[in-house]
């Protein structure tokens, strides 16, 4: 915690960070997501699980308006970040995405140096006034992404030259370098081997101290390992949302139980 900016963002774990009410998503005429009500808490890892095509990634991308880039995609209902409607006409999605960072399924570092990858966000948002400040941000982001020790001697070598797991941690470092408040992760481990996956999961657990993390995953074990709260999506609906332990041990909805026990999905 060498960055003063985090000091004023210590909030209680019960605080609602993102709230969705009656969220609907349409792709053209296809009603992809119906009536989703979710409260995502601060400093918590929330996992979205469900079979392929159930709408969990779609919903994740609503939270930082990445769906805006998909032609024909329409979002209705209300999604708020700290009580402010993020789909309000006055909201600039660019500003929103600086607060709600995202890590994608496939590691996608820019074909630039490791340093430039991490420094890009702070640079375009004007978070630093000098080279030294950017250096500091890059180092702290890489440290928090558990990549500093591996990358500190090769900051100027291309980010694409790292291994898959390192690339994904670089993407996490890039996302947290802009000091977001929420970190969205869309199946961050699906392209990684078990060791790299374990490292990322450990990292997610550490990141929880500073951010609210939302993770979409196909692996129920992963959801059980890293998350405090879990939401189960099925066929474009939010079926059940609650404490991870309760979802996995005592699901209220029969569909959740079928999925958890491997009968559907």
């Amino acid at each position, binding site marked *: 915690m060498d960055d003063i900016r985090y000091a004023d963002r210590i909030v209680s774990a019960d605080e609602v960070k993102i709230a969705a009410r009656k969220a609907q998503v349409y792709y053209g005429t296809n009603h992809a997501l119906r009536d989703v009500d979710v409260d995502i808490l601060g400093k918590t890892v929330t996992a979205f699980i469900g079979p392929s095509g159930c709408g969990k990634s779609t919903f994740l991308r609503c939270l930082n308006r990445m769906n805006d*880039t998909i032609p024909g995609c329409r979002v209705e209902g209300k999604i708020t970040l700290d009580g402010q409607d993020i789909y309000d006409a006055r909201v600039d999605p660019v500003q929103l995405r600086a607060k709600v960072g995202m890590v994608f399924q496939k590691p996608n570092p820019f074909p630039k140096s490791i340093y430039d990858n991490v420094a890009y966000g702070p640079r375009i948002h004007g978070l630093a006034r000098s080279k030294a400040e950017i250096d500091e941000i890059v180092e702290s982001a890489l440290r928090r992404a558990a990549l500093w020790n591996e990358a500190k001697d090769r900051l100027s070598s291309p980010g694409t030259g790292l291994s898959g797991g390192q690339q994904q941690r670089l993407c996490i470092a890039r996302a947290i370098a802009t000091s977001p408040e929420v970190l969205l992760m869309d199946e961050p481990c699906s392209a990684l081997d078990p060791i790299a996956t374990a490292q990322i999961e450990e990292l997610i657990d550490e990141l929880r101290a500073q951010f609210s993390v939302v993770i979409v995953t196909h692996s129920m074990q992963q959801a059980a390992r890293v998350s405090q709260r879990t939401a189960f999506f099925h066929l474009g609906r939010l079926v059940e949302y609650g404490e991870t332990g309760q979802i996995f041990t005592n699901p209220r909805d029969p569909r959740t139980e079928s999925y958890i026990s491997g009968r559907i999905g």
Partner: protein
Amino acid sequence: MTDATAPESQAPRAGTLFAPDNRPRRRNAAERRFRAYGLTAVGLSILALVVLLSSVIGNGAGAFRQTFVEIPLTLDARIVDPKGNRNIDEMKKVTTIGYGRQLEASMVAAVAAAGLKTEGISDKDIAGLLSKEAAATLRNRVLANPALVGETITFRALANGRVDGFFKGRVTMESAELDSNVTPEQLGLAQRMREAGLITLAFNPDFLLGSDASEVRPEAAGLGVAILGSAYMMIIVLVLALPIGVAASIYLEEFAPKNRWTDLIEVNIANLAAVPSIVFGILGLAIFINMMGLPQSAPIVGGLILTLMTLPTIIIATRVSLAAVPPSIRDAALGVGASRMQAVFHHVLPLALPGILTGTIIGMARALGETAPLLLIGMVAFVREYPAAPPEGFFDPASALPVQVYNFTQRADPAFVERASGAIIVLLAFLICMNAAAIILRRRFERRW
């Protein structure tokens, strides 16, 4: 060529692994046939290329070497400066006819001094070994430096096209019998002069630097104006087509909504790339010359037309290379809060740059070789004056390399065949340079992701 799978029988296959049965044998034979077709096709294209290049180079290499006559020449003041006052305005009144007399006297004297036999050859025929351009060359030299009057200088002039042809094997004693422009006796004298060192074959820089010459003096025709005109047009194409094309493609690919209108635009751009170039020429004639009143034969008009022709090529190449950038890069940039424009200009465009540059250079190479539209806007005219330096020069009459080739091939004198092939060699050299530049730029900017 693929064979459908036969229904599998449950019985184990008979036979041995070491002897292929019918089905793999047929498949392997089909593959061998296909490879043979491919090799034949490649071989035929290489053969065609070799034939083309060897014919062009065989015909055109001679254009770079020219026959020169070198004689000592005493400038007679009575001829070149009859008033005797070295006044440049007075001296300008002496026409090339006067200098022709001077040349004739010097040629006869030089041949006599070398002790060469001249039976049956008139003095006029001896002077006729020189190009008709020689008198003008001498006049220009004297007018540029009046102090030469009365001096003895070594004068090096182009030989007549027939004499040049004789040393290059194009003209023979037999053909000279039938030729009213040259006699076998003249050729004999030329041969003796060559042995005496008065006539030499040497590299002729004026082929690349000089301007075009008239029908009757092929030896003096050069490509300077055409090269300059082509270069001016390429500058105009690059300056206009690259930014417009790239901006249009970025807008269409990254920002424009995908609807019927953009689909229509897309289809039309693809169609534009296939429009015959002469149609662009007619369009340019109507718009740039008739409506806008731009001058005829000017590189600006040619450049604008070629820009229109090149734009679809650049737009298509740019859109393809933009679309080839993985969407994950855009997502990554947007995900850290870059605006769409930042995502495009910081990340997508640098990755697409090699493709864009290659497309641009290929489009420009095509424009460089384009002839038809230029004929329509009057660039086929006979232009002897060099265009001025840009930007004024864009509005001066000029020629262009492919049009110059066309021009040369239209002329009767067989010496122009050599000139035309020489011009093609120059054109090909330019094209090779541009393509090499495309490859180098591609290598330099290519990045992996």
